């Protein structure tokens, strides 16, 4: 961030805040607002209160951030657990959360300065000890599913009542954004001690909402935390989630007045929202990317020209039109165009060109085309995407049939056992792109099915991206990474999913975010 005095307008209330820069890091709207205290208008909106009723897409796997494993849990976790770091909705740039500032005195040390006077829902103070407890639990507890997120952490040290110093094994400036996700969600140590594994179902955090009730597969009830550190949030008295897994039914529940809001809808429902009927649509890009994972350990795909042919064979615009009804963004790399680390030049590499694809195949020694063992999932949406891909590849002389199965079966077969040439799946995205690239392409990574050593320079560039916390320098590093990945065609990116939400007219200030995991902290109800 170069622009020190960039005034941004918060859509919530029309107030103008100033964004300032502390020691090589960023502060956001909330910090300034918190210092100034709640504004009169905000207080009025908040006094309106009301319960926000949300049609939720899935039952959570666990309400404990460390033990859960599903990307669809965040919708419930974000309200209950405050994170050390937060992000800007539109770009995923980091901004202060429970940590009001942070700095890297050297590339292998991160100092977090915590907000004072914050407490968990059960009254336990959220101080340096609590943060150390959480970070140590997240990186070493046997039940923790997020140990790898904090793999670069050597030790956590309490260096003040409200200061924590994290010592790193290697430079890792992706850490602040890692702390905006599960790893940075703070759990009450007292509650955890008392409840043990039962905390999975009775979560105690320090977020804008307190947990009240979870009825499996049916509903989750949250109520406002009046003690939340940011007095500007939340603006409703509570949130009631009704779990409705079918997206069409979710939309209809808003239309019939049973719910105020539904998220994770798909392109077909966008067409319905736009036909009117008392429902408003909110749309925005996400980092959730449909892509073809390539196992290039052996066979035709070990030849870079064949992989490039695959990338030229896919007509991404048509794919977005046919399978997502236009509600998506064609993907030419692992980041969408609105992301802060996007590189427009890399996006030019693979225009749709079946002729070129055939030529590349011929150059690779396959003038008659190739036959591949394709893998995919068995839900209707995935099957439709596979049909489209099969058709497009056939036009370029790439033949084959899909073997389909459940997400867990197929992922295990492809990633763990190395079956199949490629897998049509998705990458849900990570708050920091360096995680995305390391997880997808490192030689020993689970998601690198062939366990092929990455092309020269890739790992260096990833390390480079982690050794500085200057966004411009990081952006440079990511351009290099993306160029290496795409020139070597290590993946076939297909399309970024658009987040599609439908809401009743009384729902105000609803916004999507680039992570594709909606937060409702700024939403209020009117009328």
């Amino acid at each position, binding site marked *: 961030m170069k622009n020190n005095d960039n005034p941004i307008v918060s859509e919530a209330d029309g107030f103008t805040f100033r964004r300032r820069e502390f020691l090589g890091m960023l502060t956001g709207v909330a910090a300034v607002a918190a210092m100034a205290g709640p504004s009169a208008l905000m207080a009025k909106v908040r006094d309106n209160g009301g319960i926000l009723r949300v049609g939720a897409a899935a*039952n959570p*796997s666990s309400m404990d951030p460390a033990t859960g494993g599903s990307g669809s849990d965040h919708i419930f976790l974000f309200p209950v657990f405050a994170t050390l770091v937060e992000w800007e909705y539109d770009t995923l740039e980091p901004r202060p959360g429970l940590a009001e500032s942070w700095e890297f005195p050297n590339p292998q040390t991160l100092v977090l300065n915590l907000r004072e006077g914050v407490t968990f829902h059960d009254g336990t103070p959220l101080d340096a000890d609590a943060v150390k407890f959480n970070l140590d639990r997240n990186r070493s507890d046997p039940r923790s599913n997020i140990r790898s997120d904090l793999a670069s952490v050597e030790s956590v040290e309490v260096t003040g009542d409200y200061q924590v110093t994290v010592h790193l094994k290697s430079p890792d400036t992706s850490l602040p954004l890692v702390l905006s996700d599960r790893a940075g969600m703070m759990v009450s140590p007292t509650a955890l001690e008392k409840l043990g594994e039962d905390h999975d179902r009775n979560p105690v955090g320090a977020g804008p909402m307190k947990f009240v009730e979870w009825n*499996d*597969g*049916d509903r989750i009830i949250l109520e406002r935390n009046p003690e939340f550190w940011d007095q500007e949030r939340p603006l409703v008295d509570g949130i009631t989630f009704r779990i*409705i897994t*079918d997206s*069409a*039914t979710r939309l*209809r*529940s808003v239309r*019939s007045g049973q719910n105020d809001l539904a998220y994770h809808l798909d392109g077909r429902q966008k067409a319905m929202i736009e036909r009117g009927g008392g429902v408003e649509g909110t749309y925005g890009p996400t980092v959730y990317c449909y892509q073809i994972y390539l196992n290039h350990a052996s066979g035709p795909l070990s030849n870079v020209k064949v992989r490039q042919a695959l990338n030229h064979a896919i007509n991404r615009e048509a794919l977005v039109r046919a399978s997502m009804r236009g509600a998506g963004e064609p993907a030419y790399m692992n980041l969408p165009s609105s992301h802060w680390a996007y590189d427009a030049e890399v996006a030019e590499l693979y225009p749709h060109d079946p002729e070129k694809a055939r030529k590349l195949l011929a150059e690779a020694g396959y003038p008659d085309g190739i036959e591949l063992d394709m893998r995919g999932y*068995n*839900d209707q949406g995935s099957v439709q995407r596979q049909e489209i891909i099969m058709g497009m590849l056939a036009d370029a002389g790439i033949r084959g049939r899909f073997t389909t*199965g*459940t*997400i*867990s*079966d197929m*992922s*295990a077969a492809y*990633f*763990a056992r190395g079956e199949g040439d490629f897998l049509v799946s998705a990458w849900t995205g990570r708050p920091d792109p360096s995680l995305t690239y390391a997880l997808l392409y490192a030689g020993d990574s*689970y998601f690198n099915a062939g366990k092929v050593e990455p092309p020269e320079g890739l790992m260096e560039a990833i390390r480079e991206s982690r050794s500085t916390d200057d966004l411009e320098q990081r952006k440079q590093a990511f351009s290099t990474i993306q160029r290496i990945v795409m020139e070597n065609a290590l993946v076939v990116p297909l399309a970024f999913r658009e987040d599609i939400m439908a809401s009743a007219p009384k729902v105000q200030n609803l916004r999507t975010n680039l992570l594709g995991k909606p937060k409702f902290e700024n939403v209020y109800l009117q009328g």
Partner: protein
Amino acid sequence: MSRNKQLMLLNRLVQAIPIMILATFLVFSLLQLVPGDIAITIAGENASEERIEQIREQYGLNQPFLVQYGNWLLNAVQGDFGESLLSGEPVLDTIARVFPNTLFIVVYGVLLSVIVGVPLGILASSRPNSRLDGTIMGVSSLGVAVPNFWLGMVLVSVFALGWNWFPATGFTAPSESLSSAIWFATLPAIALCTNGVAEVTRQLRSSLVEIHGSQYVRTLHAKGLSPAVILWKHGLKNVSVNLLTVISLLFNKALAATVVVETVFAIPGMGNTIVKAVLESDFPVVQGAVLAMVVTVILVNLLTDLLYTVLDPRIKQV
């Protein structure tokens, strides 16, 4: 009740037991059809060798098949069908949650079959081989041939999306609001009942035609009794036992049809649960839910037999 009848009832109950046991065995054997190592499948994504071994231990997969079955049956008898591999919810809780919904639409559907089928059957039998009879029988053969999930789609498209008379999908539990439950369940029940309407109509028609042709009824006719009275007093009474058999058959068919119909209407019921569990390889849920359905069918058959024994004066001897 005569002693004979009591003996007969007891006999029926005893007969049901081996069928139940056999059913549990067959349901459990389903797991053996899964190709490859089921422990790996259960362990899922990113599983380590220890985790797979742990699962073998936990599910007793390293034991002989019959021992596995014995253990499973022992637990199942106590109501423990294990837990869902995905949500971790005990399978019995899942069944308890969704079964009432399925039962509601099935009973609703069967009721509709009877309400529509009985008048149609009487009407058709009143003038056998007339044009009316032909039309009714023609329509009823369509009722057998129509795929019920497709009919469900057509109903949704016309009555829910087109005219907005009914909700397109979803469900309200009857315990929450009966009127809302009926409103939500009407289209699914109609989709489920066509087959039943046809069966009831045909069965009733052929029984009534037979009775109409009998010497006995002709005599009554000659004695000057009005056709309505004859129909009511002698016709329907005599066919009610037949009808009972048809209804139990309908119940079983409708229960099976929920597998697709619930999917079309996104109803959180047994059929929907089984389909989802199958697609997600959630074996404990598949086993538990299929067994629950089979046991229901066996119980309904048993109940029919019992009612049959009680109702029909002709069945006296064993």
